């Protein structure tokens, strides 16, 4: 089983992104569930969502405490939230980062095994005219982990948000930089 935690802000589509990952997995014949952290999702406030993926039915309906992967939809969240809490050793970090960011400057904990960097905000602004980063982050996630197929995610993204977002997904997939740290 793979466990994922997404960190975003209200209005970024964090919960929906989590649902798309699950939907893609189910389309592929697998199982998954996603649970949003239960709070009041005010625009701009930190929110999180939990995802589990597996090849067999997933029984626990609990939050994720030791994720295999953390997706951070807004880099500035690192100031407010410990996004690495419980990250499994050798786990994945999918980070929305400024263009030209260097891993050495990111002050990552030792638990991170693979980091995926993408300027999701920049890509989203250019293509959508607004900093809604979930689609771009999904592209980076798929590229970094390969846990679900890009085409399945793309079809759902298009279904929910239209062609422009599906293109953004592909663009982010191409642009994302996967760095293995060990």
């Amino acid at each position, binding site marked *: 089983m793979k466990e994922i935690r997404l960190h975003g802000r209200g209005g970024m589509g964090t919960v929906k992104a*989590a*649902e798309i990952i*699950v*939907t893609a997995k*189910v389309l592929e014949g697998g*199982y*998954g*569930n*996603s*649970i*949003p952290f*239960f709070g009041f999702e005010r625009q701009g406030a930190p929110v999180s969502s939990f995802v589990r993926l597996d090849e067999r*039915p*997933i*029984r*626990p*309906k*609990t*939050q994720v*405490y030791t994720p295999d992967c953390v997706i951070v939809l807004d880099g500035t969240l690192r100031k407010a939230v410990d996004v690495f809490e419980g990250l499994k050793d050798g786990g994945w970090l999918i980070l929305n980062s400024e263009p030209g960011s260097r891993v050495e400057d990111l002050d990552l904990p030792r638990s991170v095994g693979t980091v995926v960097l993408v300027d999701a905000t920049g890509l989203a602004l250019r293509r959508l005219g607004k900093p809604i980063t979930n689609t771009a982050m999904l592209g980076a996630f798929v590229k970094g982990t390969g846990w679900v197929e890009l085409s399945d995610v793309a079809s759902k993204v298009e279904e929910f948000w239209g062609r422009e977002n599906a293109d953004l997904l592909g663009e982010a997939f191409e642009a994302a930089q996967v760095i293995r740290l060990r």
Partner: protein
Amino acid sequence: MSTVAVMNGNYAAATAARLARPEVIAAYPITPQTPVVEYLTLFAAEGSLSSRMTEVESEHSAMSILSGASLAGARCYTATSSQGLALMYEPYFRASTLRLPIVMNIVNREMISPQSVWGGPQDSLTLRDAGWIQIYVEDNQEILDQTIQAFRIAEDPRVLLPINVCYDGFYLSHMTERVEVPEQAEIDAFLPPYEAKHQILDPRKPMAIDPLTSGYLVMEYRKKHMDSMAAALGVVEETDKAYAALTGRSWGGALDLYRMEDAEYAVVTLGSVTGACREMVDEKRAAGVRIGLVKVRCLRPFPKAAVAAALARVKGFGVIDRNVSFGWNTGIVYQEVRSALYESGRTLPSVPFVGGLGGEDITLGLVSKAFDEIVAAVDAGRTPQSAVWLWAPRKGVKA
């Protein structure tokens, strides 16, 4: 033929309601049930739901509108949570004593105070004696399957009682997972249209509903109500079998047992915590502990004999309650299980856990701890006299 979809619990409930073709729907939004109302209005706007729907000004009116509609012979559906259910109490009790087969999902949420919008079945469990059938489920597929079945159970001439299908707020209502959705034609065959024969408000057949009634007749009606509750237990099982024949999915009727065949210890569960407990049963069994699980699905009518039979060979058990019974100082399900055993003449060591209040997560770690505590208490022949609190201590919180 069914369709595989991915949906949250509220969408599963709304989808089930749509498939059941209720003639009248009245609901008032409340967290965490709100999306059910939104989905239904969306279905109606899209044209996939033809129910008469009304946007009411309170839950009291929602249940009242359905009471009127049901008296006039309509199949009825609604959903609520917590304070909404509390506000409904007056027409809620009356819907059962008037024998109105209304189906209502309860998206379980903690009762205030303290102010909380998060999960916990305190709301519906507190109303266990109000004459409704109450069934509790553990995942989104079960929400959909059981909500469809609820209409058939409620409208069965042997039953004619309103029914709640209860699911945990947020943990299920807002959790997204894979759900198989049956075809409309399959459900149409499973659920013939409702015909109110026991009473009807219809000028072609004038009758009085609920005249002033002497005590001895109140006794008569109460006894009939109780008899129907008893009959409902069988109808729940039958309906589960009929639904399994249709979809291949059986949920076990009033009670669902997991790895109980040779169990020395048992954990009794209700609602969404069951999944984590199943996982932990497997884990403990792998470590050599012979523990099994009894999931209470039907809380009313309570399957007393089945519970006693399920626990007939264990040395002891524990109950994980996400609710409290003030003054009894344990959870409510624990009382029910203990009472059922008393009838069978057995006294077993047992542990009354209380955890997960106000949406607190009952983590796998906590479940593991609970299982260890069951084994330790049972082996020592110990029964704690009040609740064992299942929680992870936090800094600054008085434990």
